[in-house]
């Protein structure tokens, strides 16, 4: 083979130097490896959720599968309440924090001066504090405010964290939107606020959608705050799941069943949203 065209490719890198067939094989292998790496735990989880309590530890103990675990879990009132609470907390936290992050990101992107600078420094400082370090102080604060173990007791800390983390991403989205569109709107009869609301916000919708999805998933999966800041009044799914490990042993089969149930909404949101997430994070 006198492959003249391939010669310069060698300098480009290993991947491009491979022949087309080799490239395809390499790509397929790499993709399969990555998929297996991520899919295997999920596969194992589903498998465990379908086994009886005694069948969990040994694969070779029969090929007996059952859906009893799901029936048992879903008949526990605390699991149902936790599902509902987790859903409500995630949704409310997303809606409320996006309301703030959108405006705060916009301010950081468009305005200069003492107020934006102070705000910027504030969220910067809070961002620097390790996440874990927030939990204990928040426990005492929520106790003092008598919102411990309530929706607000969990929502407010979540929203605060979201504002610190997501204002930056929102600022990035607005940085990518040409401000002259808003100037045109101001000349076309909008106030400054109107230009933000009617022109900048619609243009940021892909970004906002992406952020909403990330925000929802983040809250849905969050464990630490939920563990410390809630008790019996407001069970949260991630915490309830962990409670299948207790003094009397570990009910892996029930825990897995709950985990699979928890996976479903997250999966739906991810599948529905991946288009937006990819597009949104690209602008």
């Amino acid at each position, binding site marked *: 083979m006198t492959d003249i065209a391939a010669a310069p490719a060698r300098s480009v890198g290993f991947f491009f130097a491979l022949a087309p067939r080799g490239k395809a094989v390499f790509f397929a292998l790499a993709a399969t490896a990555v998929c297996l790496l991520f899919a295997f735990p999920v596969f194992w989880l589903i498998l465990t959720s379908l086994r009886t309590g005694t069948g969990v530890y040994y694969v070779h103990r029969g090929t007996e599968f059952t859906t009893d675990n799901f029936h048992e879990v879903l008949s526990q009132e605390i699991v149902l309440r936790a599902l509902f609470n987790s859903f409500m907390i995630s949704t409310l936290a997303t809606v409320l924090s996006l309301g703030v992050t959108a405006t705060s990101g916009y301010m950081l992107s468009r305005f200069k001066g003492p107020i934006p600078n102070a705000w910027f420094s504030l969220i910067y400082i809070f961002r620097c504090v390790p996440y874990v370090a927030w939990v204990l102080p928040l426990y005492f604060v929520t106790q003092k405010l008598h919102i411990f173990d309530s929706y607000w007791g969990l929502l407010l800390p979540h929203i605060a964290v979201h504002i610190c983390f997501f204002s930056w991403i929102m600022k990035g989205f607005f940085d990518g939107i*040409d401000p002259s569109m808003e100037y045109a709107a*101001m*000349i076309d009869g909008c106030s400054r606020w109107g230009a933000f609301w009617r022109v900048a916000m*619609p243009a940021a919708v892909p970004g906002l959608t992406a952020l909403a999805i990330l925000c929802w998933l983040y809250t849905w999966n969050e464990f630490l705050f939920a563990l410390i800041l809630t008790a019996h009044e407001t069970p949260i799914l991630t915490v309830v799941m962990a409670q299948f490990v207790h003094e009397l042993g570990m009910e892996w089969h029930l825990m897995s069943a709950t985990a699979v149930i928890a996976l479903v909404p997250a999966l739906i949101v991810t599948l529905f949203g991946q288009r937006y997430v990819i597009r949104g994070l690209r602008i």
Partner: protein
Amino acid sequence: MADIVLSNVHKVYGHVVAVTDINLAIKDREFVVLVGPSGCGKSTTLRMIAGLEEISAGTIAIGGRVVNHLQPKDRDIAMVFQNYALYRHMSVRDNLAFGLRNRRVPADEIAAAVSRAARILSIEPLLDRRPHQLSGGQQQRVALGRCIVRNPKVFLFDEPLSNLDAQLRAQMRLELKELRLRVPTTSIFVTHDQTEAMTLGDRIVVMKDGVVQQVGTPLELYRKPANRFVASFIGSPSMNFITLRVSADGEHFALACHGWQFRLPARRFPHLGSHVGRSISVGVRPQHVRLGAPVNDDQIALNGAVTVTEQLGDEQLLAVRLGDGEIRIAGADPDLSLPTGTQIEAAIATDHLHFFDELEQI
């Protein structure tokens, strides 16, 4: 229907002085072009008139009303931006209607205004598209349409043609001129392109470093530039400048540099008297240098060797060595063969000489 008056307008960003003491009176329906190199404060001036930028000092009045503290939306202006700034989540139709809807104009009037604007700009087939489905020239037209639907007192243009390719730019320039006839409105047009300025403007304002250098009609600027900067900025190829030493010689003044000298009658150039014994910058446009020997006393001669030629098809541009410098000559016969080193003789009518005190470009 409005005149615009800028009095002693200044703009300062922190420590950066963007615009210094602009005084300008723009008549009703006049088309004024602000021109100057990048960073000279053209956009800043325009944005102050639009109300997008605060005015540091001075006043701006539109139609006799001081607008310093009015919101952009209350100034009754329209603006076209360099990148068009179309609302990207709206159809072309909604883009055009947006301003009217904000002003609560009845729906049937909006529809009528939109279709009128669309007809004027021939964008009727595009009304239901989104901005990203349009070409640059089409977006440009929509941006113009967004201005004319509202029938404002003033149009402001910030380099609206600079994102178009050369051919489309020339075409849009013509369309803008036609549009002016149909929709005569006081307009301010910002550009850094002297051709656009010359072709579009009733009057041109040349700016540099935030300072107005000269205001005048295109011909005034071309024929009587106020300083070396204006002289070099207006006209293409740009004016030649030669530094010459002036001395008195009886009835004449002799001007000389290394490799070139000529005499001018003192009677016709009395202002040179104050420069005797000093150097002066003499400007001459490439178009005003003719190949061939002088044919009368009003012309001065010039000899030199060709260094470079540029063939344009209908003419040739020459660069000719003159003393220590070079002089550019336009309008040479395209069929002439002038290899590098050819000695040529050229003539300049003394009427076409410009004299500047500044030896360096200000």
